[in-house]
């Protein structure tokens, strides 16, 4: 494999994705509702008003089961805040990946989870330009939260959402209800929405800025577009996490200038040019 590295130019000085962050809180929260909304995918609602009120789109929670539990997940797992209700219910989009996520999928109303959040950086709109949000798989989660929040503040949002198969697509009607707007769906098997990769849906004619969350190949495709067309791109990245607050230094991603940045505290949302890419 020949890999070229690219940084997209520019410096990696801190950018205001990280302003005005609330102090994280740790508390137990009851599950209000949990339902399977697509193949191996659950919409999990937890009652956590304080964390909900403090959360911003792009931020995440660590979800665990406390020290008396030693089964997976023993170390809490990171999940994007997927939505919040005015009453303080937080919605999370959970896809089965391993033992930890399967356990979250099996939770029943009344079960308690231990939350730590809100954590990390947030997506940031650019006044006067639409935010073109590109989601792959459960990378949809932060945009379900972002779309109505940005729209309420007068920012235009367009949402593209791709899955490998139609069976994995999160109910489009529920997406429209949660985001109070439209969604354009792409699947590789063509069983829902348009057939193809979600990045094929990118239309730059109204001078948008790009936001992405999803698998790395999708983020790479977005970065190529953004660097070629010189469009701002913010991406949410994933890495194995331990503490969620920067102490364990477990979740590093490569920085444009060399070295590492913590996905939990500098990220998870980065300007694409802050990161080191292999494109």
């Amino acid at each position: 494999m020949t890999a070229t590295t690219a940084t997209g130019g520019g410096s990696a000085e801190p950018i205001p994705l990280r302003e005005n962050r609330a102090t994280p809180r740790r508390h137990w929260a009851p599950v209000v509702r949990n339902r399977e909304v697509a193949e191996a995918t659950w919409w999990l609602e937890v009652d956590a008003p304080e964390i909900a009120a403090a959360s911003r789109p792009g931020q995440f929670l660590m979800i665990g089961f406390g020290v008396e539990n030693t089964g997976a997940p023993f170390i809490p797992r990171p999940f994007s805040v997927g939505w919040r209700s005015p009453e303080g219910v937080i919605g999370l989009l959970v896809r089965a990946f391993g033992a930890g996520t399967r356990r979250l999928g099996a939770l029943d109303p009344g079960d308690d989870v231990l939350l730590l959040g809100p954590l990390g950086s947030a997506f940031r709109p650019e006044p006067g330009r639409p935010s073109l949000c590109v989601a792959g798989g459960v990378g949809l989660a932060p945009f379900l939260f972002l779309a109505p929040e940005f729209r309420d503040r007068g920012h235009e949002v367009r949402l593209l959402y791709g899955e490998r198969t139609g069976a994995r697509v999160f109910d489009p009607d529920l997406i429209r209800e949660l985001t109070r707007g439209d969604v354009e769906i792409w699947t590789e098997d063509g069983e829902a929405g348009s057939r193809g990769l979600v990045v094929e849906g990118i239309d730059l004619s109204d001078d948008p800025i790009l936001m992405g969350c999803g698998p790395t190949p999708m983020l790479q495709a977005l970065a190529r577009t953004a660097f070629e067309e010189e469009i701002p791109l913010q991406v949410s990245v994933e890495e194995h996490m331990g503490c969620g607050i920067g102490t364990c230094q477990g979740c590093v991603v490569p920085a444009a200038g060399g070295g590492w940045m913590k996905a939990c505290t500098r990220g998870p949302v980065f300007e694409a040019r802050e990161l080191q890419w292999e494109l």
Partner: protein
Amino acid sequence: MGAVSQRLFGVEWQGPVLLASGTCGYGEEYSDLIPLDDLGGLVTKAVSVEPREGNPPHRISETPGGMLNSIGLENVGLEAFVREKLPWLEENLDRARVLVNVVGNSVDEYAAVVAGLDDEDGFLGYEINVSCPNVEGGTMFGTDREALGRLVERLRGETDRPIVVKLTPNVPDIGAYARVCEEAGADGLSTINTFPGMLIDVDKRRPVIGNVNGGVSGPAILPMGVYLTWQAATATDLPIIGIGGIRSAEDALQYVLAGASLVQIGTALFVDPESAVGVTEGIEKYIEERDVGDLSELVGTVDVERPARVGLGYE
């Protein structure tokens, strides 16, 4: 003085629970979540002479009852530690004690960190992490008795502050290493650091951890930590800080009965930051309920002499 306070290393410790090195950053990160100054103290992330970038990801992964990590001792380096991290500790911690975890690739590097810190304020003493390769000798300080002895002797010459040596479990006879530290002038021991381990992603047929191998921590290592603490405690008279898999008062008390005066909590903090507070409360309750005078009366009192019997009704 409460039932859990003790005098050790020349000072008063208000409680027996410290946050372990590498799991509490430089203190500040947890200050919003738990009352740090009510704890016994904390041990900073390792400090080396030069900043270290650390290892490529993945740096951590879960394993049943614990985790595997290979951070690579990423740290800001001595100079930035003094400039940016120590002032916070000095300003914000009054009663909780701070040990600075020290690493190096040579005796000189360790000595340079100690010499560079010794006149600063904001900490009590040093925890010497000897799970580091000795570039001069080609071994690890912690698995080479001669190198270990030389290291501790040299550091003893650099400082009058407490020197606590954090032993690696990766040796056949930890008691011998404990004695080497004692003879070389150490004030205490921390037992133990992580166990070497490896996980493989069977789909990719590659190691899960970027650095191939890492250190195992968490409840999975509790019995090994208790055993090694007991072995070290029976081999020396040095005060011991027990570490490994502690997530409850009962776990911590096992270390105390095995011979530890203080304990550290690492991985459990990730699971629940408040676990450190819960452990202290649980130990207080144990002492109160059993009418033990204070914590120091429990240290090393596990009864291994009582013969094992097979008859029913033996108590």
